[in-house]
């Protein structure tokens, strides 16, 4: 990265202060001052949750959570990354389960310890209603858990903050898989297409295209009808 001119501000990476340009994300700012992360960076676009970060601001007692790749630096930011969160994952064979929501409590009984403090929701850098989906999980409402947790990128911050030691995103993952497999289930038109393929009804046309010379192929391509 080339050195930048313009407005700078001061951030503290694990307590050490650095001047950085003001228009950088936390991730780029840390690189700017010389870090080359092995952990703590993944997709760099807000999709993987590898860059979970906590910080405080000057004269502010609150602890803030962010994704380092998605948050612009602020003056006086006092930060550290949490590149890994130890959590428990239950092992299951999805084929042997069903759509009953009681499975969530069975596999993750700790969700019953939720004290509705809402700390998880406040911690979520995706702004999800984490506590609401934990509550839905307790009720066994897998549809609601799916809807509310869908945009979860598993950064781990809710699990770090939960006083009841729940790892909400593990529960949500199971709920979504149950919902997808047993509630949405197998779609009818897809069934039909798979049968047609099995009966080898559709391969012929492809073979014909493969055997065409490029001139013919180009002409068929230009002639194809576009669905409105």
């Amino acid at each position: 990265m080339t050195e930048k001119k313009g407005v700078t501000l001061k951030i503290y990476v694990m307590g050490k202060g650095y001047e950085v340009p003001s228009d950088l994300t936390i991730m780029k700012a840390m690189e700017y001052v010389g870090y080359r992360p092995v952990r703590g960076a993944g997709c760099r676009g807000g999709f993987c949750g590898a860059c979970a970060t906590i910080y405080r601001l000057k004269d502010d007692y609150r602890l803030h959570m962010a994704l380092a790749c998605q948050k612009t630096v602020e003056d006086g930011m006092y930060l550290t990354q949490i590149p890994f969160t130890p959590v428990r994952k239950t092992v299951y064979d999805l084929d042997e389960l069903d759509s009953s929501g009681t499975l969530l409590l069975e596999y993750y009984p700790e969700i019953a310890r939720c004290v509705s403090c809402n700390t998880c929701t406040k911690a979520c850098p995706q702004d999800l209603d984490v506590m609401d989906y934990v509550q839905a999980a307790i009720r066994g409402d897998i549809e609601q858990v799916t809807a509310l947790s869908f945009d979860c990128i598993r950064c781990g911050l809710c699990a770090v903050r939960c006083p009841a030691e729940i790892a909400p995103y593990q529960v949500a993952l199971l709920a979504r898989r149950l919902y997808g497999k047993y509630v949405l289930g197998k779609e009818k038109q897809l069934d039909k297409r798979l049968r047609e393929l099995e009966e080898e009804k559709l391969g012929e046309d492809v073979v014909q295209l493969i055997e065409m010379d490029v001139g013919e192929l180009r002409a068929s391509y230009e002639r194809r009808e576009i669905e409105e």
Partner: protein
Amino acid sequence: MSSLIEGYPEYMRESIEAVARSRDRRLKETFPLIDLKEREKALNQFHPDYKTEGKRRVRLGPNKGDLAPTEVADLLEAHSLIDPREIDLSTIDLDVDILIIGGGGAGMVAALWANYTGAEPASILIVQKLRLGDANSVMSQGGIQAADRPNDNPAIHYLDTIGGGHFTNDPELVRALVMEAPSILRWHEELGVVYDREQDGSMTTLECGGTSRKRLHSCRDYTGLEIVRNLRDEVENRNIPVIEFTAAIELLMDEYGQVAGAVLYNMETQEYHIARSKSTILATGGFGRLHIQGYQTTNHYGATADGIAIAYRAGARLRDIDSVQYHPTGAAYPEQIVGLLVTEKVRSLGAQPVNKNGDLFVNPFEPRDVESAMIIRECYERKNSIETTTGMRGIWLDSPMIEAIQGEGTIRTALSAMWRLYNRFGIDMTKEPLLVFPTLHYQNGGIVINQRGETRVPGLFAAGEVTGGVHGRNRLMGNSVLDYNIFGRKAGIAAKEYAEKVKLGKLTLNHVAKYEELLTEAGIETLRRSPMLLPDYRGEKTVSHALTVL
């Protein structure tokens, strides 16, 4: 129309207002698709790939004489990270049947199918440079193509794919892609992947650039995230061993010229491990982080073409490696997210690209390379673009149209990732358009494979973005998520079958030593070493003062 424009500098107001003013008119207009001749003209004049600068002929190895982007040629014409004489091959640290290099989509799919078809979990090993699933695969937003609707069929999918690829694709690979696509959707349903559905329970499908049917299946705009979460959970449920933060830095071979595993590098402890394996699958993904021709990229941190570099030394052949996909719509503003993807689904749902005057200049659904070329022309030849505070040019993607066409609230539900991305930086895309410019997105070419996912080197299989042929010289949206599923599955099954039969001889790194000789013969004098493993974004000051003492 003097409402406050949030998130954008004041000087852009005039143009943003022009876009808003022409919106009603444009809602009824479509800019025509251009014909094949015009396409070629646009590409030749404006697409970065069609320029002669930025490429050179590779001077050694199986593709000697072929063109490659300078950044890729640099990695091919480079020394190994290891000196074979310093590596102890007499102690085998890990001994498996199927070694999978790269834990993105292709790698996990391969592992699962090897396991489904009979490989014991403990006989498989995934080595992954970052965390499992931290890959381009987790980032795909738009969706996956599969010809499963009544008005669609694999032949139309074939035609769209091969025409989009300018008739350069490997026909047999495309056949496998289109014929097996519906079976992948079925497998995903069984894994519990939550695809978007209509009220009546049928699959929601959308059109995308270069397709003639609505064939794109998505999971909101987190398709990759949803698929990868399921794959990763299944890999964990099935107890398939994974070693994270460990990169393959060279393939191992045996005395009979078969690939026999890899030299691994623990990126945290900085030690090497010898992993012997009867079969090896490369699933290392693409090369966005090489920043070809200086472009910003949508790709994840580890997209550095490692697989290409190490397979080439072992004798694998490449194709179309000079063909790069620039996604037409990368973020051009704000600075924090420059280069990140604005998914094509934004166009699928109705947003038109418009110039600074609010006028149409391209149909939203041209194949990607054509769309990009037209945007570059609008910015650099016709100069109808907006310049950002850092000197980057861009055109508008008129996202508020989505709400006008599909109904209010569509963006928050169908494009929640996009909305969140912009909202974090103060831009409300339901009200304001997005400033975009093409961004480096996808490695069209790669290692040559056959329909079983085999390379020409015995024992070496490959799948996903690291391979070439499926997409020819231009990939359509939705076809690479499909690609890593189809060919990941094929490679996993083929590697498992191969491992049952092969007899390995003595391990060697002779191919690395031989490659050194080739470098000398070709007169290549360089300090460069490859694979790259991770890009280096440290500030100049740090780099210029770097010392290695500890």
